């Protein structure tokens, strides 16, 4: 089941990522595995020029350069983590779409949980009040 979903995900990624990537710099992959890795990696990385696009989608010259660089690093046998670190060392954590958990990103990571729990508490309190006081609508308005 899990691999089925992964397959669908990869198919979508391939559709979205390959077409623009091939348009400007045809990179030749000797094996399918590396090609899939390349596609997965470039959608996780942000284009620094147009900051709401990923590296796979962007047509910016810098994105082309960085795609080329990632391709070379893959050919040289570097791992995904090494390639990400290469980019973080130069551009900072911002190149990652998924920021690492750090003291300055804690709010970002914890806020959804806080909001979810807070919302659940509000709903709980409202429901309880209505149960205790079925005629409460009139009192509120």
């Amino acid at each position, binding site marked *: 089941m899990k691999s089925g979903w992964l397959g669908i995900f990869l198919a979508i990624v391939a559709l979205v990522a390959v077409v623009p990537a091939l348009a400007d710099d045809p990179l030749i992959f000797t094996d399918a595995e590396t090609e899939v890795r390349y596609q997965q990696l470039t959608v996780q990385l942000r284009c*620094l*020029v147009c*900051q709401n696009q990923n590296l796979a989608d962007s047509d910016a010259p*810098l994105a082309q350069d960085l795609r080329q660089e990632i391709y070379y690093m893959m050919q040289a046998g570097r791992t995904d983590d090494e390639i990400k670190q290469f980019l973080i060392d*130069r*551009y900072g954590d*911002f190149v990652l779409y998924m920021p690492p958990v750090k003291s300055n990103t804690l709010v970002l990571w914890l806020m959804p949980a806080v909001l979810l729990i807070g919302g659940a508490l509000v709903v709980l309190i409202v429901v309880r009040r209505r149960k205790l006081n079925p005629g409460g609508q009139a009192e509120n308005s």
Partner: protein
Amino acid sequence: MIGRIIPIIAFVLLGLLLAVGLKISDHKTVLPSPLIGKKIPEFSLPVLGQDDRTVTHEDLIGQPFLLNVWASWCVTCRVEHPVIEQLASSGRLRVVGLNYRDQPEDALAWLAYFGDPYALNIADVKGRTAIDFGVYAAPESFLVDAAGTILFKHIGALTQEIIDTEILPLIQSSGISPQ
């Protein structure tokens, strides 16, 4: 009573959150460089217009300098150009150019037309060294001390104010002012 106050408080909090967000978003496109406090990256590139002369990171070390990343296709570089020219002619700081992703003939024509304030121009035609400097937009300027450590980076056009309030004080406080 409390039931009526809570929505108002929630509204004020939301308003504050959005106000803070708007304020931060002004600076969103300017990213802090992870290279500040580090040594300049290694490179070996030709001098602009002199393909037989190469310059390396080691050649630049020994005296503080401003590395200005520019290109002939970069419109903002033209806006910044008089400020760079004035800084260079004041003799207070050496200005080195990194000509980024440019055709050397276009770059030379640009310098001939607007004036050449640079002590030296490095030709990074492929933009590979610029990646090592974390460059993502031109113009960008790096202040480097005599030991080759990056002290400060500015993205976008330099202004006289930035030079006076940030760059020059930094060279003075590093105690290695030229002359």
